[in-house]
């Protein structure tokens, strides 16, 4: 089980990091989601992996699993869910205003419009 969980966390993280380095906002949002899944699984495992044990101590329970990471994961899920909603709305707004869903800033962010000649603009166009 340790191998399964750790490889799942590793693969989700790798996929997430690859996706957030893409230039399109859709891929970035997907990457964020994968990263947060990976982190949630990782947080879950910080209380050590225990199978078939109650999280709350009762009479007669021989062992228990740490309940705190489960509470942390719950908080982290809620926060990352909300943040994903915000980033989707923001990406949608940027797409509607700017006409494309690229994540990098255009040259017009760094240079005034009149100093951008036509050929330099085209070099910055759709890729």
């Amino acid at each position: 089980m340790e191998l399964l969980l750790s490889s799942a966390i590793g693969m989700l993280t790798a996929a997430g990091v690859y996706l957030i380095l893409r230039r399109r906002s859709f891929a970035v949002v997907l990457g964020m989601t994968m990263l947060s899944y990976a982190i949630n699984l990782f947080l879950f495992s910080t209380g050590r992996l225990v199978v078939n044990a109650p999280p709350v101590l009762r009479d007669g329970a021989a062992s228990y699993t740490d309940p705190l990471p489960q509470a942390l994961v719950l908080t982290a899920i809620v926060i990352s869910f909300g943040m994903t909603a915000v980033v989707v709305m923001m990406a949608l707004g940027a797409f509607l205003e700017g006409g494309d869903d690229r994540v990098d800033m255009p040259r017009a962010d760094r240079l005034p419009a009149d100093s951008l000649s036509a050929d330099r603009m085209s070099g910055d166009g759709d890729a």
Partner: protein
Amino acid sequence: MSHLIIAPVVLPAVIGPLIILWMRHDLLLQRVFSVAATAALAGVALYLNLLAAGGEVQVYRLGNWAAPFGIVLMLDRLAALMLLLTALLALAVQLYAMGSGWDRKGRHFHALWQFQLMGVCGAFLTGDAFNLFVFFEILLIASYGLMIHGGGEMRLRAGVQYIAYNLAGSTLFLAALGVLYSVTGTLNMADMALRVAAMPAEDTALLRVGAVLLMLVFAIKAALVPLHFWLPSTYANAPGPVAALFAIMTKVGVYGIIRFFTLVFPQDAVTQSVVADLLLPAALFTLAIGQVGILGTRHLGRLAAFAAIGSIGTLMIAVAQFTPQGTSAAVYYLVHSTLAAGALFLVMDMIGARRGDLWLRLDRVMPGNGLVAALYFVAAIAVVGMPPFSGFVGKLLVMQATGGAPAMVWIWAIILITSLVAIYALSRAGTILFWKSFELGLAPAPPAAAAAGPKLEPDEPVQDLGDAPANWLAVASVVLLLSGIVALTAFAGPAMRLAEATAAQLHDPDAYVSAVLEGQEGTK
């Protein structure tokens, strides 16, 4: 135990929703309640400073639960000072936002402002590592809204970048907390400090990983090179007053580093040298890149943003010493650089309001040229650290604190050379903006605001002067911030004694730990 310790969190948390639910359509009511709340916050922060001045660390146990299990809020000198700084900056900048008309360019400005204050104050007060994460998220989610206030293509694009970068930072924060929890089995910072101190040196591999991850998270927030890439576009595209408030947000990252690496991973622990070894080169690069960036940019917002990055570099050089002297210099410079960066962003916004855009290029003379030039002059001197203002005192203290350090030659050389670069860059910008413009003659007078009525183009990157409902208030609030810098210079002696007392308290974490974990009779 004073219940007012929790007021800096509760007050904005109550006023923010009230503004959304009851005053959504009435800007005047929003303004009155929001300013009153921020002023009350400043009053509470002042009282908390008096409370903390006794030198005793105050603990507020939420729900009266016993310490390692319940969440605690902690009030020491540093937390109280940061609260006061936040409240005063927020008050002045909020007055600017109202005077310049920024707050009516979109809805919910004041509500988001209060939520932002709630997150920042909570982050300064909390004594629980996971609670710190939650407050970070609160301040971030409010800052996302504030950053795109007013809308427009560039602002939204920069906002997407800002969110993406900080979401990645948040996942890193959770990873760091997970690692630390798996090693120490606690999230309470004082309890964590005890367990880290009791850990045998050969078992600290994971602990060091956790500490470095945590440092990376705070370095992202503080915009330390090479994790600073989110800052220039974000601050340059954010509305002027919002960028000025964000001057305190980078300081939250600095606060996190100071807090964790004096309390949980102090000097003698195995982790400490790793962090200091990484932090000092990063701080030097931050300073150099920030100051050279001022020279390289052609956008006034970016110019102020790079100046903010440079000041973080100077600040982190002092922090990276991890000595009481270094920390006290850092505390003094932190207060100064927050006020100076805030003032510079506001002055840049004033220039943008008069010129119609924020590009650094030759244009005709702006209306009110002399006044804006004078304000720019004072803010620029404060930012580069020339006498007679507190930036000079601050830089001197930083250099004094690094006097005996092994890397002293590097530190002094980089501080002095980059100061020269910044002086050149800011005087060049000032010359282009205020003096050479006379070659082109005066700009036409702006159309009378009363006749045209507020035009409120939401997509404009700047708020035009013609739209400003009370320009005198905007000017007065910049003067207020700058007079804070003057006061910090005039009362440098008392301020420095306060900073020294703060540093002494930080470097004696035993008092903090015992305040949390001892004397818990009567708790649940």
